[in-house]
């Protein structure tokens, strides 16, 4: 995911901080499709997207994955640590560089819902669950 970021930011980092004492953010991402929005938009506005989605999900039950927080973590977690936090974590490294506190992870998990079984099982559950909710076909 985010090849764009992975390529663009180190280049940017390099030109700005060759020989600098400033620790640069780590933007290692696992290879995959591109992010849900262009890289420059995400850098500037990612907090707006997740803030908007947060209210939609919490209060109105809208659970699209495009701008969901879970989606960020699922893609951006470091495959080694399994987390977006830590010194080289995608979220934390950039936030320490920008000196912006992240509150998200005092409640949200920093680990993806990655277990392959989980993802595969989800769509099936929706169908069988629908039957269960009406109760007519419950055992």
């Amino acid at each position, binding site marked *: 995911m985010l090849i764009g970021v992975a390529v663009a930011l180190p280049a940017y980092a390099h030109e700005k901080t060759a020989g600098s004492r400033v620790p640069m953010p780590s933007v290692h991402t696992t290879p995959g499709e591109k992010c849900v929005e262009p890289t420059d938009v995400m850098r500037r506005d990612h907090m707006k997207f997740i803030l908007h989605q947060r209210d939609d999900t919490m209060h109105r*039950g809208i659970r699209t994955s495009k701008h969901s927080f879970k989606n960020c973590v699922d893609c951006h977690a470091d495959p080694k640590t399994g987390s977006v936090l830590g010194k080289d974590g995608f979220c934390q490294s950039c936030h320490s560089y920008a000196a912006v506190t992240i509150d998200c992870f005092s*409640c949200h998990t920093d680990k993806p819902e990655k277990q392959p079984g989980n993802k595969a099982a989800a769509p099936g559950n929706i169908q069988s669950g629908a039957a269960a909710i009406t109760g*007519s076909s419950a055992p």
Partner: protein
Amino acid sequence: MTITRREMLAAGAATLAGAVVTPGLRLIELATAKSPEDAVTALRRWGMLIDVAKCNDCDACVTACREENGWQGHNRPATDAQWIRKVKLKDTETGYVQTLPLMCQHCEHPPCVDVCPTGASFKRADGIVLVDKHICIGCRYCMMACPYKARSFVHEATTDQKPYAPRGMGTVEACTLCVHRVDEGRIPACVEACTKDGHQALVFGDLKDSNSDIRERLAAASSTQLRADLKLNTGVRYTGL
């Protein structure tokens, strides 16, 4: 044999009814499963019916809830979070003992929402009462207002939360009726566990759907709201109490 017009119409209606009832059930289910981009509406009201007579002396529902939502305690019963708990009722005259699960009753007129100073405690359009932890300041007024003692305060820093059930220090939490599952068209973890164990004491469904299992059961036998005198119109009802 001649068929009169009236007989013809009656036969037609009967055939139509037969065709609709069986395959129709499936059609309705498919039509009502919410897609992720749809907002919840007041056309539904989720509720639960608890048959106390079928409630065993087990805690399958509590365990299932804890595992689903990740609210494991710190072995401090006075302050540990408890989204659902088993309550034992004893008739002091006769010694008759009953146990029942008690959790957020998802009131139509929730006192916790009335007292919340920030709007964190709210009722969703489909009747599920939740805490928006982004807004919660941890004042705990709602805990005092709730007549069912359904809410807990998170005293400790949390780690390894479930991705779909965020919880953090300094906020209040309670049963969400497994809103993340309900939005996907699944049933709450406690109901699933109770059904799986064969007790079938918990029934979950749409209180506004006249064809739902829960509505049929509510119509068939008497049920009670806990503290009905408060006129909160709870979404969780009990039968066999």
